[in-house]
């Protein structure tokens, strides 16, 4: 890392600490520039600009929406969406006669620097739906054999993962992939590891509920679930409160809408790193601070994909000017010298059948990454240390077995994944930074825990 780059980084950091001040300095031009930097850094390797944009992990992307607002305090997340989606929600909520909280009035309690999540027009956020969704999320009645709920594989203490390399469904079927963290899932451009078709939580919920390859919750029909839920007294009140005036509110559509509403409240943004970003220089160790600088250096380059407030480039929010849904092949496999990944985990290719999509997966958020081991879509990397081995090699080499191959030589690898050399101390610094992203409040927030 050069002195110049460090200076740029420091300047950006200073800006992000005081980011309302920054936007005040150039509210008409500064913020849009920052947005463009942030976008470009994902696909280009321009050293200066990308360092600077990567540096302001918290500052950059939220500022995109912020440029349309008055440049007020960081907590003005609501103002950012004025020009975008939330306006439509306001009309929608009013017209739809949603009782309780209208969607536009929903109090997200967003952390500093977080934009307002995008919410489908036909499912505005309400307290009542979130409350119902929480009951459903933790209810084993949502599985055919009543042994599993959503929370079986998405456990709060593990940032809504399950600690396994592969999920295990209600009938014991092993999933090809591991459950993804649901932290900040409201901001995901697309859902699951690599499926461009899944853009909303409502529809995505049908996959674990009804899917049979692999069987997850294993429900056979809509009637099965509706009949079961209608027999539970607590639900009659919860559904009625969420959809007042609806004579038969227990429907699968309402189930998935409530589940989606609850999941959109799984927002994690109060880690030590966030406190460091927003004014407490002692919130993370010196080692973690050095690790953060390395993370954003062009040599190591983690920021290329793990950028912005959610430490991923695969984000969307209300009023975002451009919908990005980038996927990356990181050279985790190269079993035929042509970049192949072992089936069925071929990434986006599995869905699109486009050869160029082989091995392309989402960059997951790094928030709470220290509690979501094992890593990668198939849990094939056990520790953060091993993950650094994969990236420092510019792609993993597997020496034997059916998956043997040199990932660093994959022709399909994203070119931003390049080998780098770091000392043992630097490695420890990077891991200290990653550990500083653990949000204990989120992992233990009673409002996100089982209500049963």
């Amino acid at each position: 890392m050069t002195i110049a780059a460090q200076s740029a980084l420091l300047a950006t950091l200073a800006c992000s600490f005081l980011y309302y001040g920054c936007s005040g300095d150039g509210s008409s031009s500064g913020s849009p520039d920052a947005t463009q930097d942030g976008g470009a850094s994902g696909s280009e390797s321009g050293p200066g600009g990308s360092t600077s944009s990567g540096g302001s992990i918290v500052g950059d992307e939220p500022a995109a929406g912020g440029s349309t607002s008055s440049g007020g305090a960081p907590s003005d997340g609501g103002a950012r969406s004025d020009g975008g989606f939330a306006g439509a929600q306001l009309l929608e909520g009013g017209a739809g006669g949603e009782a309780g909280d209208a969607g536009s009035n929903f109090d997200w309690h967003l952390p500093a620097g977080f934009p307002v999540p995008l919410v489908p027009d036909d499912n505005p956020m309400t307290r009542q739906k979130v409350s119902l969704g929480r009951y459903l999320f933790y209810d084993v009645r949502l599985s055919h054999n009543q042994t599993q709920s959503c929370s079986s594989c998405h456990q709060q203490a593990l940032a809504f993962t399950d600690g396994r390399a592969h999920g295990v469904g209600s009938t014991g079927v092993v999933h090809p992939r591991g459950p993804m963290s649901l932290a900040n899932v409201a901001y995901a451009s697309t859902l699951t590891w690599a499926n461009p078709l899944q853009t909303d939580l409502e529809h995505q919920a049908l996959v674990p509920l009804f899917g049979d390859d692999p069987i997850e919750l294993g429900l056979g029909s809509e009637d099965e679930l509706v009949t079961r839920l209608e027999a539970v007294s607590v639900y009659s009140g919860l559904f009625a409160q969420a959809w007042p005036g609806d004579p038969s509110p227990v429907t699968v559509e309402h189930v998935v809408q409530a589940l989606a509403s609850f999941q959109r409240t799984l927002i994690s943004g109060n880690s030590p790193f966030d406190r460091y970003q927003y004014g407490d220089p002692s919130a993370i160790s010196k080692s973690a601070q050095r690790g953060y600088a390395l993370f954003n250096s062009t040599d190591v380059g983690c920021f290329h994909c793990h950028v912005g407030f959610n430490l991923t480039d695969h984000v969307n929010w209300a009023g975002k000017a451009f919908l990005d849904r980038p996927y990356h092949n990181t050279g985790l496999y190269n079993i035929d010298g042509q970049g192949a990944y072992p089936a069925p985990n071929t990434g986006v290719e599995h869905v699109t059948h486009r050869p160029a999509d082989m091995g392309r997966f989402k960059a997951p958020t790094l928030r709470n990454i220290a509690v979501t081991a094992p890593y990668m879509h198939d849990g094939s990397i056990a520790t953060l240390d091993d993950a650094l081995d994969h990236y420092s090699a510019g792609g993993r080499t597997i020496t034997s077995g059916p998956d043997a191959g040199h990932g660093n030589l994959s022709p399909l690898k994203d070119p931003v994944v390049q080998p780098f050399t770091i000392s043992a101390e630097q490695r420890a610094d990077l891991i200290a930074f990653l550990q500083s992203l653990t949000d204990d409040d989120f992992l233990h927030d009673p409002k996100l825990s089982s209500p049963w």
Partner: protein
Amino acid sequence: MPKLTFASQSAVLAALACSFLYYACSNDSSSSGSPNAAQGGEASGSGGKSGAGGSKPAAGGSPSTAGARNDAGSAGTPSDAGSAGTPNDGGAGGEAGLGDGGSSNPGPMKVSLHFKATVGDQAFACGTTYTGQGSTKVSVEPRDFRFYVQNVRLLDTKGNAVPVTLDTRTPWQTPDVALLDFEDGTGACVDGNPEKNDVITGTVPSGTYSGVVFVNGIPDALNHGDPLQLPAPLQAGAMTWGWLYGFKFLKAELGATGAPSGDAEPGLGLVHVGSTGCDNALDGGMPDYGSPPKVACTEPNRNEVRLEGFNPATNTIVADIGALFAGIDLSVDNQCHSEGPSCPSEFAALGLDFTTGAPTTTQSVYHVE
């Protein structure tokens, strides 16, 4: 996507001619024509949310007018495109009331297409054991057998394919698609339910028919709609294929009754057919967040079945799940989720090219009895 053949163009013209003379047409079968027309109108209303409802209710037209329009509308509909508003729909409806011509075109008649599922030459039933199945001749028990049918046509004596206008028959049929369901939830059919359906009902122009053509599939416009908004039989459940934002067109499963050797998986033949190779960034654009994605798939995987020597009044269409798995070793776990090594054999049996997802001209699963 199949082009409109000369034969089906003729059918369109015939149906249009009928609509000009709608009173004459409906006089031939006034008891059946009007209710069908009314049902068609209702169905298109509910299907309209997904853009699939083909024929909107006629504005001010009589029920029998709408019935004629339904004929014309579905006649002009290729199998893939769904029945979403073709020009023929509106044109026929608008002009029907003018009725100024006269010819002796036949009116509609009710038709029922009866299906029967078998395992080889034995009737299919959950909970029954069938010996000698698959390439290794093992004993199996059914686990599932359901499939969707679209674009049903009857072959007249000249070989013309004449579209059948499907009744709206909840929960089994809309004007666009029907579900045949042979499992009853008993035995090893653990994913199933008690309800079964072995018939497709609809109307065709009166006449003599000697063959049938149909497609296993769901029109595109419906296949990628929201299953929580679509009318039955397009419901969330065992036939949805959420990961590809669509439905399974066919779900057929036979489980071996013998215990597996060692710690091997139990023997299983499984075929789930649906459109694959899908994306939603169409026209270079991005998905429209918050609404069902505009999904397009490169492998449609819709097989077309053509059976000669079929008289709907006297014959039955037999769907032989044993023939579907004839080339599969059912003593081991052999699953085809429209991907997997066993698929080419089963796709060939259905009349599909596994590589392209296009229909072929030969199949071995269906025959006439």
